[in-house]
């Protein structure tokens, strides 16, 4: 495996499965009274968040602490970052403090890559979301959740059919998921209005649909994406009611899904917009499992990147 986790594209299928398998063993251990493992004792992991986040930051923090690492949280608000310090100077500061791993979230695509490639610091870099580019650990925890529910926690996702619905254009979660799901053998269908699909989407090797309605019973997993209003500087759809009617997962669409199909959402949810409360709280929803699995995936990632260093 590489020293950094910047993009799903950098992982081989074997690397990805290794992370999933390691997470599965760690999940078993942390289900027992053993909550804490001494593996990363004495290492420092910095959560460097230039963008608001609750679950990802808390998830990384919980994962690092369960491995006995020291965690420093660094968020843009209330730090020198809001005074205009550059990424380079921040990196040099972290290097001087001896950070062994840096978990970075940044509004600009490529920020994690820049941090990793500029030799400003020696630590491992983990991309926790860069702009509209990638969010690799989210894709890994989604694949883990799909495997847990549909494949008995074993092997790859060959022939699993996944629908990713909604704001693909602004979604780093969708990009990482498409790459990883394809790597693991799943077939992916993107469902979105044309305005919320990236320009070159036909080169992704996925099925694309502009309507949600058709053949919903064919999917094994339906992943709803958050409508990212904070990234929308233009009108991408006429109004919320129309979006919700055409692309929201409501009760009637939920009832068309097959009995085994699971409903996923990376969070935070806009209840009533892309997903109705009925759907979010239904038996098919595995949204809370996704959050729980996130900790195991991040423990596995931290262990595999930092454990042997």
């Amino acid at each position, binding site marked *: 495996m590489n020293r950094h986790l910047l993009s799903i594209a950098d992982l081989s299928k074997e690397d990805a499965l290794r992370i999933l*398998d390691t997470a599965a063993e*760690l999940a*078993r251990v942390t289900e027992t009274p053993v909550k804490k*493992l*001494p593996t990363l004792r004495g290492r420092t992991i910095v959560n460097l968040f230039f963008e608001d986040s609750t679950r990802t930051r808390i998830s990384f923090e919980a994962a690092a602490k369960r491995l006995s690492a020291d965690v420093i949280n660094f968020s843009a608000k209330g730090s020198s970052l809001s005074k205009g310090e550059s990424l380079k100077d921040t990196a040099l500061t972290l290097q001087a403090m001896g950070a062994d791993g840096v978990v970075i979230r940044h509004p600009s695509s490529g920020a994690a890559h820049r941090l990793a490639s500029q030799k400003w610091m020696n630590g491992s870099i983990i991309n926790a979301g860069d702009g509209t580019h990638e969010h690799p650990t989210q894709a890994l925890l989604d694949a883990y959740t799909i495997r847990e529910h549909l494949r008995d926690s074993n092997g790859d996702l060959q022939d699993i059919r996944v629908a990713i619905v909604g704001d693909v254009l602004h979604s780093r979660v969708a990009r990482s998921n498409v790459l990883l799901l394809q790597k693991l053998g799943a077939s992916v269908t993107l469902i979105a209005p044309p305005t919320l699909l990236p320009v070159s989407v036909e080169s992704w090797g996925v099925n694309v649909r502009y309507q949600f309605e058709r053949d919903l019973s064919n999917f094994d997993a339906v992943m709803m994406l958050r409508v990212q209003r904070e990234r929308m500087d233009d009108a991408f759809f006429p109004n919320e009611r129309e979006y919700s009617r055409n692309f929201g997962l409501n009760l009637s669409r939920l009832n068309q899904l097959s009995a085994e199909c699971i409903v996923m959402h990376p969070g935070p949810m806009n209840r009533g917009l892309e997903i109705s409360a009925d759907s979010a709280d239904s038996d098919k929803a595995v949204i809370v499992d996704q959050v729980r699995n996130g900790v195991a995936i991040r423990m596995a990632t931290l262990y595999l990147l930092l454990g*042997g260093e």
Partner: protein
Amino acid sequence: MSSDFSVVLDQGEIARSLKRIAHEIIEHNKGTSNLVIVGIPTRGSHLAARLTQMLSTLEATNVAMGTLDTTMFRDDLRGSAPRSLGRTELPLSGIHERDVVIVDDVLFSGRTIRAALDALAEHGRPRTVQLSVLIDRGHRELPIRADYVGKNIPTSRSERVKVLLTETDGVDEVRIEGRA
């Protein structure tokens, strides 16, 4: 490299060693009622399963068994590629106040066993912890000794002791590689 080896235990000898160890465990613990046999993945788990089978047959009872992965508790992880994790699966009845016998294939530096003791402590407080190994090859780096030993084999540090088991390797055999 690997063609240059000598066999120190064959299938029959491995089976006889395990059988003797099983008898010693029963004798020392005055039965099997309070025992939990805990194997260290991967080969220790298979040896533990065999021992548990023998103990259960000898005493006509079901002896509790589990596996314990020590990877995350090791103190020598740094400086080498990250190890893959094995399975940890302890009996539901737990290990509290039980007599735990840790089973591993080769006892060498003692660092795996130290990690196993730490890992075990996370799951509860056993009444006693005993250690059974198929091969003791010496060169301890920690004050750790085995209670039950299949065979003591003096080695030099540069040699490699390889335990092959039918479950993983298709054959029961203990080899020493790299002997001058």
